[in-house]
């Protein structure tokens, strides 16, 4: 299976496309947060999906199949965003996918692939949300690159092939809980038995399904697609903002987001004022431990100059401890405003007392800035 995945790289994306994508991939890394959690489950998914996919190999374009296989790999934190370009949008519409008797629709197939992956992984579908959010952003990128037609064809081919496989997995899955998390609009639609499917073939590949009794003109479809995208993004935000699991309304969610952003901004302001206060009271911030902290990160292994830094960069036990503390802390979300300020004030009082021993190690500013220039630039 892997060699097929690698052969995908030789698909016709020219080098520039990939480079552009990967550059922007760096900016999108933050969206891969939840992929870690689902990694272990994904291996099972890959293993189980392979036999099903293999049945489809003979029937379709080579590219179409490859992309299919690659799909679960996406959740493994792959940097390869070619995949996203091929599947710019996958809406969370599952209402009709339960009925396998339906005429296979490309839309349903696409959605099913992305959704079944998430179904098997965890109860919640945050990874899908994030992926789809990435999708929409990459959608923009894609339109800029202009490789639209090619991916659209791939999507069609893959969609037809997928339809058979998706059915098995969708049945009996936690469909109800997946549905519960979908937007209210979608869950309303999903209650309808038969569907009149229509597809909007727009250049940015928003696939929308019109259900029975709904208007199918392009305006309302576009409107519905837009609303679905927005609700998807709201779900992603719900995962980001702590304590929003119980809030169901869009307005309430926005309220929470507003409060959270405000509290974060206030925290930043408070902390920056504290830094300013420290800056004025002490000649230098004791910054020796920071390079060591940075060196502990795997990503910073590319700074080999760390090893050659002078002796005053030795870590003492206290510094090592604080390095670990910082490592751990960066992974956790910050506390709420009141907690944060309370803890900050506590730490500030202890911080002042700690300043005394540190001042003994302070060096002149010139030496410090020289060190930093050497180490980081």
């Amino acid at each position, binding site marked *: 299976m*892997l060699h097929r995945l*690698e052969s995908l*790289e030789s698909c016709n994306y020219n080098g520039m496309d990939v480079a552009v994508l990967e550059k*922007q991939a760096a*900016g*999108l*890394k933050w969206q*891969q*947060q939840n992929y*870690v959690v689902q990694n272990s489950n994904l291996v099972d998914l*890959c293993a189980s999906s392979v036999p099903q996919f293999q049945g489809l190999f003979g029937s379709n374009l080579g590219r179409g199949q490859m992309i299919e296989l690659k799909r679960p790999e996406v959740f*493994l*934190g792959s*940097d390869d965003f070619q995949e996203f370009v091929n599947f710019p949008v996958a809406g969370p519409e599952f209402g009709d996918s339960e009925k396998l008797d339906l005429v296979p629709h490309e839309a349903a197939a696409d959605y099913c692939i992305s959704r079944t992956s998430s179904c098997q992984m965890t109860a919640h579908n945050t990874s899908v949300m994030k992926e789809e959010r990435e999708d929409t952003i990459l959608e923009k990128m894609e339109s800029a690159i202009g490789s639209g037609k090619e991916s659209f064809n791939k999507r069609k081919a893959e969609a037809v092939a997928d339809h058979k496989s998706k059915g098995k997995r969708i049945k009996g899955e936690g469909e109800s809980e997946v549905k519960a998390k979908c937007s209210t609009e979608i869950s309303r639609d999903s209650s309808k038995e038969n569907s009149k499917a229509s597809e909007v073939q727009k250049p940015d590949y928003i696939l929308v399904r019109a259900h029975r009794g709904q208007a199918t003109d392009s305006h309302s479809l576009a409107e519905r697609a*837009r609303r679905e*995208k*927005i609700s998807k*993004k709201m779900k992603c*935000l719900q995962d*980001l*903002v702590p304590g929003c699991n119980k809030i169901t309304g*869009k*307005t309430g969610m*926005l*309220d929470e*987001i*507003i*409060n959270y*952003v*405000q509290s*974060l901004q206030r925290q*930043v302001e408070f*902390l*920056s*004022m*504290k*830094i*300013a206060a*420290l*800056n004025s009271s002490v000649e230098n*911030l004791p*910054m020796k431990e*920071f390079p060591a*902290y*940075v060196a502990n990160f795997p*990503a910073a292994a590319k700074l080999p100059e760390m090893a050659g830094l002078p002796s005053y960069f030795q870590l003492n036990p206290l510094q090592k401890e604080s390095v670990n*503390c*910082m490592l751990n*802390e*960066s*992974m956790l979300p*910050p506390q709420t405003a009141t907690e*944060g300020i309370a803890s*900050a004030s506590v*730490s*500030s009082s202890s*911080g002042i007392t700690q*300043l005394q021993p*540190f001042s003994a190690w302070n060096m002149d500013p010139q030496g410090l800035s020289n060190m930093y220039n050497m180490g*980081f630039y």
Partner: protein
Amino acid sequence: MEGYMKEGRRVYPTEPRKIMQARFATKYLNYLLHALTNIGKPELSSTLDCCVNKEIDKMVRYEVDMALALSAEGFAWSHALKHRLRLNVNNNNHAGKSQSYLAHHDDHRTKMPVNHEPATKKLKGNPKRSGTEAAVEEEEEERLTYLRKLIPGGSGEMMVDDEILLSELGSYVTCLELQVNVLRSMLQLT
């Protein structure tokens, strides 16, 4: 899982989240610490002595914001933040470097109540009466416009689209969280 990933030319990050956070923290600290050492030097000869503390506050705030903007390249809001900071530097003199940013900030913060309970209570209290779709949408619009003011560049032409606004919000929130963590750790170490 690791074996599966390591096969082939590509190297998959096993913990993409940590790597992303590390990258952010690295860039942030690089910039901020360097900037703070420069502030620490007694170079503020032109400014008034009595306002030195205020000055340092503003400069630190400026550097903190700049560090955020530079550590999170590739987002519309970071671009807008950078632009706004540089604009402030050019417009104001050295004394009021980040003043307009802060003023803009505080102004909009006071416009709307911190907890939006008064507004939402009104809605909840009379679900039938004000439960019309139009009213709800209006509320949402109100919230969205407020969010636009909170996020840098929210009112600009880049984020006219609601979806883009929400994506940018997501990235902004995570970067703010990271920034708070980094700053807090910095202060703990001191």
